[in-house]
């Protein structure tokens, strides 16, 4: 039997070592390379650092005209932007792979297992397939708007990364209106979806677009209000400022130092699920009701862009939640003075400083992936709610409670200003409570699994 006619399903369950190594190298290598590029470029793209870095490698910029220096700086910024957008696309693809593997385990299926070890390269194969698909535009569609809408969605998504931190000094631009800016540009996504729904000239797409508009605009309000709670606690809108006002340990995080902030996190999380069109709020593309909602008429690359944004949004929503509520990139035992000392007085920071940057990036990425995993669990567990229930949940429950947490946090801050110990007591108590909750959660999970005669098995992966 030659290789071409061989039945692939007949081969043994073991992945070839070469495939395994290639998958591991690529799976860890690609994000590592991209993150390393972000790590180097985001501090270096600051003008002063750029001059110092180039002088260190022997290029003296002081002889250049100011315009030439601006051009060089702009080029570096463009490179950084490209790398961050590439990272967003890669992380979106990897999220698809992870989600499919996790959902397969939840559903007693095998899941991706063909392309590469654990089917890792499936997301690349899917993307390539979508690139080669025919690009269909329905006959009576509004052709200009139909073509334009994926770019609205992609722009709204990519712009978020400008103010999204990756580490202590690793941020494209630490805007002083950070969280406000992020909320604003995310709203572009709904514009794209609405345009897609309208221009497709399909009733299903129209339904999806209208649902999406109603949903995302409604949930912006509780999301914005609950995001104000960490802002109140930090006294700044800047993403880095919010992170710096928290500590590395759980009892120093915003979510656990203020009981109302934990409620605010719940509201924020639900609102973000709704804004990202994730189950239980996947109404705009509810496949059992609206076929595919606003995506009904899209195919090929345009569909791929929507898909990329949908899964890339998981990273965005998790990263924002981590920054606002869970201490962001804060590294244990490394306060601001440790970073300052490591940086040294020279123009270029020392090796220790870069090491600390790597540590902060690792902390941030790990936390973000953990939150992302929860979003995946939620998607494959819950059914979808109805349109009227979605609206009443937002306006009757989330918005009032968001206001309550807002006002209560103001009072809490007065209390903390009078008696700083309140914050520490709350931190200790809430972390202890969380540990107890986690213990009971694990025990209940174990009981549920063994109740049907299964056993907890981490090896079958």
């Amino acid at each position, binding site marked *: 039997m030659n290789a071409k006619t061989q039945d692939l399903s007949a081969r043994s369950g073991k992945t070839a070592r070469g495939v395994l190594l290639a998958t591991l190298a690529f799976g860890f290598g690609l994000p590592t390379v991209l993150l390393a590029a972000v790590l180097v470029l985001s501090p270096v793209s600051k003008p002063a650092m750029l001059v110092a870095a180039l002088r260190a490698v022997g290029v003296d910029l002081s002889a250049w005209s100011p315009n030439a220096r601006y051009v060089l700086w702009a080029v570096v910024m463009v490179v950084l932007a490209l790398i961050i957008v590439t990272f967003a696309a890669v992380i979106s693809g990897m999220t698809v792979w992870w989600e499919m593997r996790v*959902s397969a385990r*939840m*559903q*007693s*299926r095998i899941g991706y297992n063909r392309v590469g070890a654990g089917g890792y390269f499936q997301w690349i194969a899917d993307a390539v397939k979508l690139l080669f698909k025919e690009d269909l535009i329905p006959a009576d569609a509004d052709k200009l708007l139909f073509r334009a809408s994926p770019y609205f969605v992609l722009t709204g998504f990519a712009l978020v990364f400008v103010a999204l931190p990756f580490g202590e000094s690793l941020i494209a631009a630490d805007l002083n209106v950070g969280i406000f800016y992020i909320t604003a540009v995310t709203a572009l996504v709904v514009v794209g979806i609405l345009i897609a729904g309208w221009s497709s000239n399909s*009733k299903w797409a129209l*339904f999806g677009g*209208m*649902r999406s508009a109603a949903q995302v605009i409604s949930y912006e309000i509780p999301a914005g209000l609950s995001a104000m709670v960490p802002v109140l606690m930090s006294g700044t809108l800047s993403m880095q400022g919010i992170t710096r006002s928290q500590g590395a340990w759980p009892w120093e995080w915003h979510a656990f130092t203020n009981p109302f902030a934990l409620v605010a996190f719940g509201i924020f999380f639900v609102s973000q699920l709704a804004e990202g069109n994730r*189950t*239980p709020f*996947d109404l705009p593309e*509810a*496949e*059992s*009701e*609206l*076929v595919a909602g606003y995506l009904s008429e899209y195919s090929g690359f345009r569909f791929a862009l929507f898909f990329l944004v949908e899964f890339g949004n998981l990273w965005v929503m998790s990263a924002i939640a981590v920054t606002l509520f869970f201490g962001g990139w804060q590294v244990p035992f490394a306060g601001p003075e440790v970073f300052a000392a490591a940086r040294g007085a020279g123009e270029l920071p020392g090796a220790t400083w870069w090491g600390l940057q790597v540590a902060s990036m690792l902390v941030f990425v790990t936390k973000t992936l953990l939150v992302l995993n929860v979003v995946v669990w939620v998607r*494959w*567990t*819950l*059914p*979808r*709610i*109805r*349109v*009227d*229930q979605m609206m009443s949940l937002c306006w009757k429950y989330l918005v009032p409670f968001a206001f309550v947490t807002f006002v209560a946090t103001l009072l809490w801050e007065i209390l903390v200003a009078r008696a700083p110990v309140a914050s520490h007591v709350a931190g200790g108590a809430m972390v202890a409570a969380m540990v107890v909750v986690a213990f009971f959660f694990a025990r209940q999970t174990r009981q*549920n699994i063994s*109740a*049907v*005669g299964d056993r907890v098995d981490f090896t079958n992966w």
Partner: protein
Amino acid sequence: MEKLILRRVDRQNEEMILNFGPQHPSTHGVINFLVETDGEVLKRATPDVGYLHRSIEKIGELVGYPGFMPYTDRVDYVAAMFANEGYAIAVEKLLKLEVPPRAQWLRAISCELCRIASHLVSVGTMVMDIGAFTPMLHGIRERETINDLIEALCGARLTYNYHRIGGVAFDLPEGWRDKVLAFLDHFDKFLVEYDRLISFNEIYVKRLANVAVIPGPMAVNYGLVGPNLRGSGVDWDVRRDMPYGAYPNFQFKVPVGKGYFGVSGDSFDRYYVRCLEMAESSKIVRQALESLPEGEITAKVPRNIKPEAGEALSRVESARGEMAYYVVSDGTNKAYRVRVRTGSFTAMSVIEDISPGLMVADLVALISSLDVVAPEIDR
């Protein structure tokens, strides 16, 4: 249909006409609904059936009595055992045949396993229509085991052709009884897990309770049968009230919708009645395996079946409710008329009257809670 098109011309384009099907993920086959909506709220949903009409009743007049048996599988491919059984019983009545007890028991066992399989598909797709994918695949996983068991019994996984006129085709394979009992032990635990996973999920209950309520008298008037009828609180089960085959020998309860979370007759009741019926079916299979008599598995049936002129009506409790075969013989070896009365067809009729005021998402819940199967509607 013509009326609808007329209404469409008359109107000032204030509402939208939506073709919900024939290709739509949640119509469960090739069915079309002409949906008039005002935004998300339905004015009316008119079922448009007939896309899957395959003249099965006519085929029954053209092939001989035994030759029609494989065609009955296609009446309801999700629960083919019952379609087999109903036809077999009708022809046996024409022939005045006495079916041996072991065959009766085997029929009951195979039918109840098939009922579990069919209800698993029903509750699974219902959950999927409400938006949760995981519980559906858990149901399909259990159904796969049943398919394996039935495959071991009769060689087919979907269109069984297991029941024959006068009995059944095959006896139990070796070791089958233990496999079934092991599966049922697992399955009873699975049902508890399934309830915990999705049936009592807050969102799920909110989506179904008090939605698309069919009151008991209305269900009777529209001729709803089976779980749809019992979901509306009407206590009627052919297995208990007009016993046939081996059923008088088994103890089982008939679950009735009593408004578990909303009012009796809502979508949740229709759903949950099916969950409860699976547990009852499991009990019946256990009892039947316990008391399985020895003996022949088919009666003496002539090779060329030529019943005397006359007519016979059989009623069996299918997974989709009461299924009736009406067979008229004119004394030749082919039936003069075969008529199949199925639950899905009548269930479609109620949709138009229930739909006004529902939302689009509720229509999906209504359709899937009625558990219609397209070939059973059109035949």
